[in-house]
């Protein structure tokens, strides 16, 4: 039984790693997509921006797919319930995510102004929208989501989807997520771009980093007034994975800070996030984009870890039937499954990291607009 608990915790951590990887790598590409129309005044500059992430966006996007697959396998009930309750939002996210690869491949294949301008808009929408939704999902989950289960494990939704799109706290999280993405994308444009392109990217990135910092602090204060979730009965972390018949759960304002009060070391996580945002913006101001990029990654990790640290062990609490809230303990896969997946992750994650690193090394260096425009193969 202890092994099962350990596996559940490890997979909760790996979920955090995946979400961070997704946020950093996909967020960077999304940021570039969002900024495309603003940093690129000429077609050459826009193509250069695309060429900067060109060889890598496809690989980065896999973080997103892997995220979906890993949640499906490691937390099946969470996958089933969250994707269905957030249906409209998820479908919008999906539309944006499938528009993007096509935009990459098709934009520069036809030399007509309207064609390219349309795809540039597609980049803006398909870059900004997913990041807002990504952040808003965290915001919604923090406030609890209205759902309950029937005896056979089917979920039923108790809330209108309009709420998920338009509630103020979720919007704040969404904008913060977009700001960080703009920061990360801008940093990448500075690393591999030149001249005006890099200069404009720098302005947007610094603004994004500072805006994210402000919103992070506001969110931190706001969370004190939001109703968090706590167990009111003792919990067996090794319980079989079912949301039915679990221990009682109560909602109380400020409960999300309980973990921080109990373990003050956790305060390091938000500190890490804030330092990343502030330090990163300063590094970009000082024209150190590589350092800035890594500090931006740190900001993401700190932010996501802060949310995870506040909520643990809750994953998606139910505001209408709190006792059926999904937690790390009751929404996970079986021990056998988690064990096998861990085996695969231990073998393949280092391999992935090494060949991704190799691919970046092979393609490193500044991107020259002249080469990009002359080469019809490039994006």
């Amino acid at each position, binding site marked *: 039984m202890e092994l099962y608990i350990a596996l559940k915790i490890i997979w909760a951590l790996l979920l955090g790693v995946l979400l961070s990887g997704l946020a950093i790598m996909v967020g960077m590409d999304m940021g570039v997509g969002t900024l495309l129309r603003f940093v690129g005044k000429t077609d050459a500059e826009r193509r250069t921006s695309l*060429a900067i992430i*060109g*060889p890598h966006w*496809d690989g980065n996007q*896999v973080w997103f*797919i892997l995220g*979906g*697959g*890993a949640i*499906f*396998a*490691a937390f*099946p009930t969470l*996958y*089933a*319930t969250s994707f*269905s309750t957030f*249906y*409209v939002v*998820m*479908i919008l996210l*999906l539309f944006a*995510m*499938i528009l993007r*690869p*096509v935009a990459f*491949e*098709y934009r520069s*294949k*036809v030399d007509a102004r309207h064609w390219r301008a349309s795809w540039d808009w597609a980049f803006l929408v398909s870059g900004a929208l997913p990041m807002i939704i990504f952040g808003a999902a965290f915001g919604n989950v923090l406030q609890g989501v209205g759902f309950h289960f029937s*005896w*056979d*494990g*089917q*979920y039923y*939704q108790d809330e209108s*989807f309009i709420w998920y799109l338009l509630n103020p706290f979720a919007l704040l999280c969404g904008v913060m997520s977009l700001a960080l993405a703009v920061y990360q994308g801008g940093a990448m444009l500075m690393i591999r771009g030149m001249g005006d392109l890099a200069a404009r990217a720098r302005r947007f990135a610094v603004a994004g980093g500072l805006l994210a910092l402000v919103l992070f602090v506001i969110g931190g204060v706001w969370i004190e007034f939001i109703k968090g979730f706590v167990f009111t009965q003792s919990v067996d972390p090794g319980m*079989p*994975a*079912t949301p*039915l018949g679990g221990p009682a759960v109560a909602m109380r304002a400020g409960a999300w800070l309980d973990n921080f009060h109990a373990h003050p070391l956790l305060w390091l996580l938000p500190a890490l996030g804030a330092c990343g945002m502030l330090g990163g913006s300063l590094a970009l101001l000082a024209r150190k984009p590589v350092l800035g990029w890594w500090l931006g990654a740190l900001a993401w990790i700190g932010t996501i870890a802060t949310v995870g640290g506040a909520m643990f062990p809750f994953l998606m609490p139910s505001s209408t039937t709190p006792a059926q809230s999904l937690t790390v303990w009751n929404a996970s*896969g*079986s021990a056998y*499954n988690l064990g*096998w*997946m861990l085996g*695969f*992750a231990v073998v393949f994650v280092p391999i*992935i990291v090494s*060949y991704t690193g190799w691919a970046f090394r*092979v*393609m490193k260096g*500044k991107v020259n607009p*002249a*080469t*990009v425009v002359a*080469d*019809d*193969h*490039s994006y």
Partner: protein
Amino acid sequence: MIDPTVVNLSRLQFALTALYHFQFVPLTLGLSFILAAMETVYVITGKQIYKDMTLFWGKLFGINFAIGVATGLTMEFEFGTNWSMYSHFVGDVFGTPLAIEGLMAFFMESTFVGLMFFGWDRLSKPAHLAVTYIVALASNLSALWILIANGFMQDPAGARFDPTTMRMQFKSFSALVFSPDAQAKFVHTSIAGYVSGAMFVMGISAYYLLRKQHREFAARSFRIAALFGLISTLAVVTLGDALGRMDDLLQPTKLAAMEGLWHSAKGPAAPWKLFALPDDAKQRDAFSIGIPYVLTPLVAHEWNTTIPGIYALERAAKAKTVSGIKAIIALKSFGASHDPAALAAFRKHENDMGYGFLAQRYAPDQNLSAITPALLPAVLAKTARASIPNVFVEFWSFRIMVGLGVAFIVVFAFGAYYSLKNELEKHPLVMKAAMLAIPLPILACEFGWVTAENGRQPWTVYGWLPTFQSASSHGIGYMIFSLVGFVLLYSLFIAAELYLMFKYARLGPGEHAVQPKPLPVPARPVFGQPGYANKPWQ
């Protein structure tokens, strides 16, 4: 209460998005290995024309690949957004191959495809060749894990239902991965992709040859594709035969529907229906022509065996339903009370529980406890009828797929023969056939999907979870919103894709085979292929 309209709309959406995605997958699977073969020749012989071939077909590969990846994303998320009960019920075992696919194959494919397109002047010849092979291998590995997941839906090996968590729990990794259905289906699908890729290359090359354009380029491409395709097609047919035998053992309802078998086929003389018009409502053929002494040896590879027909299968389903209803009632009571007696009652009938779920739809208020003895015969009859897939669709999609497969053998055989004799230009008919056949393998793949998945109905997990039970509890408004969005977006994509494919295929590779120009090296070689930029065809 489950709303049948929502279930049907969810099915429609899944079928549309899956069939759409599956237009692009076969080309990716096949073209990637054809590219690898062409580049191998380039590395061996050092002839520039083979690099040009790799680049040109690689460009078409890229257009196809992007949209394949994009639409594949939909599939990964649709299980959660539209099939929540299914995801909850099998996520513990079904999600695992999907996650492993991401870790093992998709990451590799997507990372290396960037290097394949943009790394020509940054990698040595052998290193780039290795990258191309990795892309090809990873694309097919990706298909492997997806089809292992699909194999679980067809034959749930390696998992067991657990009444405490109300879901299938993963029990044996090797049983899942080495399930015979998954194995045969993977090889069949992957190689069907090779056929599609080969026909694509051969057909477009034939177009150039017919117009006497790019002859050096097209004759070589034709040769490689024709040989590649011929052997692949033969392999696909072999594997299809293996799959048929598998269905005989594991999915008798699918096989009966595929062959239009209303009555059981006993002994060697039973006819194999060459042509028939099955009428699902009346459960008989409106018309049929059969060939005796073909069916039994074809399906079972034996002379004296009985293949159960639909009437017999429905009778068997009724008995299972009686037991299944008891299983579900006991399961529900165990869920509420955790009473060991209820668990024992469930255990007695657990293997038929799927049929209990299936009967739910026909019970008053979808509540099995409300079935009175007077109502039972009607519920049993409806459940039994529902346990058989649509025979007309199954019968014909199977026959179209097989018929196309046989036609491909002919086209590839003639193509390969005349290409080997260097007499292609004397036989324009062969080339015209190859050209017209370009989209047909993809069509055959689509019909193969219909055969496999329509034949699985009414189950999402064969024998355990009915499709009706699997969908998310959405309102109709949600479904209309997403369906309209998909139709609009996907129409836009296909228009753009076809426009670009035709544009680049028409432009062709250009005449540059005779004397490759020395490549000027730019001051800062960054992206793409320096020296190719000045060529009008790119």
